[in-house]
């Protein structure tokens, strides 16, 4: 079953085509990586999926419903969680409150359920002992991990992560791979990632964007072997 699909999704910034007629299908439960050179249009694409960036034309369908006209908050409420490429936590609030805000939108006034969800999300990413710290005082890497915990706390059906491992230490990246694999199956994941070890070890399928269009779609092995991808992204021997 397809959870998310786009048809002819297009974004034009003052004459520049950032995304051109992208057709994309994401099956329920899959871990999909979205890769491509800088400026390929990856963040624009997921921005249009989450509603953060308005589309120029084309449609987005989530769980069989056309959500193209929905504002961002309404799409999130349908079960799409989004972590920002540029860290965006509530810097003045505690780590606990950051995650509680994420959990509360769905769990509402049930304080005990919210607290349990926060504790669970923080322990899954290894931040449980920092719950009372102010988020802005955390190191950059820990703020990135807090973003992931805020996504987990929403129990999303589709979890979109925009370069989550950027700025993480090697050990944290290893933990991240384990976490993503543990979510697979239950949660559908769309991962923008530059770190090839993360992509190759977690993703079940890969979509390659280049110059705003889909260059290739396939399994990690297929993508690795694709000459067009090698030329555009991984670099060719004679480049």
């Amino acid at each position: 079953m397809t959870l998310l699909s786009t048809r002819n999704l297009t974004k034009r910034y003052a004459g520049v085509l950032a995304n051109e007629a992208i057709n994309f299908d994401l099956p329920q439960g899959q871990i999909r990586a979205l890769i491509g050179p800088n400026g390929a249009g990856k963040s624009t694409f997921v921005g249009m999926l989450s509603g953060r960036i308005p589309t120029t034309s084309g449609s987005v369908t989530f769980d069989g419903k056309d959500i193209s006209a929905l504002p961002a908050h309404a799409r999130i409420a349908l079960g799409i969680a989004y972590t920002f490429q540029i860290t965006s936590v509530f810097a003045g609030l505690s780590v606990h409150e950051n995650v509680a805000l994420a959990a509360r939108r769905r769990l509402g006034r049930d304080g005990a359920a919210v607290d349990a969800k926060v504790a669970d999300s923080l322990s899954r990413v290894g931040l449980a002992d920092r719950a009372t710290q102010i988020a802005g005082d955390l190191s950059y890497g820990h703020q990135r991990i807090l973003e992931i915990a805020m996504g987990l706390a929403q129990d999303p059906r589709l979890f979109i992560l925009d370069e989550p491992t950027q700025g993480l230490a090697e050990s944290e990246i290893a933990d991240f791979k384990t976490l993503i694999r543990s979510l697979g199956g239950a949660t559908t994941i769309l991962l923008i990632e530059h770190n090839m070890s993360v992509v190759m070890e977690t993703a079940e399928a890969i979509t390659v964007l280049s110059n705003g269009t889909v260059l290739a779609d396939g399994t990690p092995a297929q993508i690795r072997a694709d000459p067009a991808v090698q030329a555009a992204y991984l670099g060719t021997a004679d480049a």
Partner: protein
Amino acid sequence: MTAATRDAALHLGVLTLLAGLWFVLPTYHSGNLARIMVLAVYAMGYNLLFGYTGLLSLGHALFFAAGMYGLAIAMQQGGWSAAPGFLAGLIAALVVSGVAGALALRTTGVAFMIVTLMFAQAGYLTVLYFGAITRGDEGFVIPQAARSLAGIDLTTPANRYFAALILFGAVFLGLAWLVRSPFGRTLIAIRENEARAKMLGYDTHAYKLRAVILSGTISGASGAAYALLFGYAGATFATVQYSIFPLLWVLLGGAGTTIGPLIGAIFMFYLIDLASGVTDAYMLIAGVVLVLLTLFAPQGLAGTLRNRVWPWLP
């Protein structure tokens, strides 16, 4: 002691202190304090929007005046008694803040400040335009005989003091509860990072509109109570000065704290009172003190206490 009982102890303690002050303060100061408590309600309404939601309005005099004239005109022209008159004031403020909020929230930042300022100026000019009813700058007095509620004469100093205290207490406790509730915490999230709050699935526009309406209606309750307890409504209360006052009270007392508005209103009231005893140029003294406070306690008095001494201060 848990956070909830500590909050309750603080807020009930403040109310007990205010009630006790009636019995020890000389008449002049208890009269001042009654006025300050009503104005602190205005400051608390303002604080909900500015201190907790992060929206800086320069037009709250519009809501204060809507409540004031809602009550005063209903009582003066309509011959209504105090209770329905007060309700009329609340409804007037609710409607005005709903309309002004829906329009002003189409903008953000500096534009929001300017739009609210313009709305308040339009409100002030409206009061002057309908001078036949409002008596413009001169204003009008609400007859002493009409100013009683459920048979209680609100014009005696004691009744007036405790009426002000009841209104203050209700709003004070209500807001203390509200800012700890999921709704209040979402407003704080919007203040801290609206883009993130939206991407957690919160309809931030709807939350901000509710905050404007609640803030405006509380401000209107203050305006209505002021007219009822002190017996006067005039266009002065719709001027830009009365939009700036709550901003100063809240900044001085501590934006985003529950007791800041009261502290700021007391401080500012007595600053002007004492300074005017020293010189005619009393605003000069007030100005210097304000500059010093902004330099050395930019979080306001309660905000500085929270940073340095009591991090738990709500």
